[in-house]
């Protein structure tokens, strides 16, 4: 059904749009595959769900929306994630 929404009621595309939160990042988490035990802790706790789980049960970090909070690095029991300062603002 087509809704007759234009300006009748506040619904529709007038909301907030996706924010490029990747630009907020001052430090980026880098995962050391050699140290990673595929435990999934980073996957559980990433607040933006930037950690992706793959079919082989491995995990990688998608930086598109990662805000660089450092939770994954802090929670990792195997020290496999390190927070590295972002170099300049090349992607800004």
């Amino acid at each position: 059904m087509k809704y007759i929404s234009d300006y009748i009621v506040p619904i529709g595309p007038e909301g907030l749009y996706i924010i490029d939160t990747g630009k907020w990042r001052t430090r980026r988490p880098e995962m050391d595959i050699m140290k990673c035990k595929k435990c999934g802790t980073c996957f559980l706790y990433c607040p933006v769900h930037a950690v992706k789980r793959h079919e082989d049960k491995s995990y990688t970090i998608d930086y598109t929306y990662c805000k660089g909070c450092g939770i994954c690095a802090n929670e990792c029991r195997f020290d496999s994630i390190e927070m590295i300062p972002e170099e300049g603002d090349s992607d800004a």
Partner: protein
Amino acid sequence: MNIYEKLAMQEEMISPGISACVGCNVELTIRTVMRVLGPNTILAIPPGCMGGVGVVGWDKKSGSKTPVFFPLLDNVASMLAGIKLHYEHIGQKVNVVAFAGDGASADAGLQCLSGAAERGDKILYICYDNEGYMNTGYQRSGTTTKGAWTSTTPVSRQGCGGKKQDKKDFPMIMAMHDIPYMATCNPAFIKDMVDKVEKAMAVEDGLAFLYVYNPCLTGWGIQSDKSIESARAAVDSNFAPLYEVINGTFKLNYQPKETIPVKNFVSYCKKFSHLNDLEIENLQQQTDSKWHRLQMLCEMG
């Protein structure tokens, strides 16, 4: 299926790029619970952090991909009750869910929530307690811990002040409504949280209530990478224990292997940094006595 497989399998219901603070564990909470709840859900986001960060977006462009709306600060449960009554009236099953802060739940919205709980409106109400009006700049609320700095319970230059009153024991208030299901959650205990959301979804004879203790990084002064660690400390110190109440029966869900002092939890938060030893000791005593009461309730079965 383990928790990792389960969560990976389920669709992300909140769009990326919402403007929650860096490291916000409420963002983690809403993303997690919405994955469990799935698309057959109508979501209410009253004024508060999750409204402010853009969860009430539109059409898979931003915010929630489920139908979502802003109720008023003080009528969340009643509006949801009305929506649920409509779907019951036409015989359609839908999860009707609130994701509301402590202000909209324990303070301004308490009357409506209490009414809905008493009437047995079949809604799922999730309260994220970040101990204050964080979206408007960290003002105190009824659930702010005693002694905490907030913008309306300031600390003097001499280092005295903070909130003078005790924290309202909100999960206990809801449990005493004798609703079919009440549980406390914590973002450091994701599996426990997912289990509880599933149990709450299955409730068919009344209101289900989930209480999530969410330390607020910005408002409390916690380092962003300690977001989960500090939340875990609240549980491990028995300050915010994990328990559930199913049809009046209390059950403890987690017993710390080694209980840590409340001081350890408090030390994560700048909002407690002015507290002297006596004040911290008082918090410890209160935590101990509440923990003791909870244990007794759980022993009663």
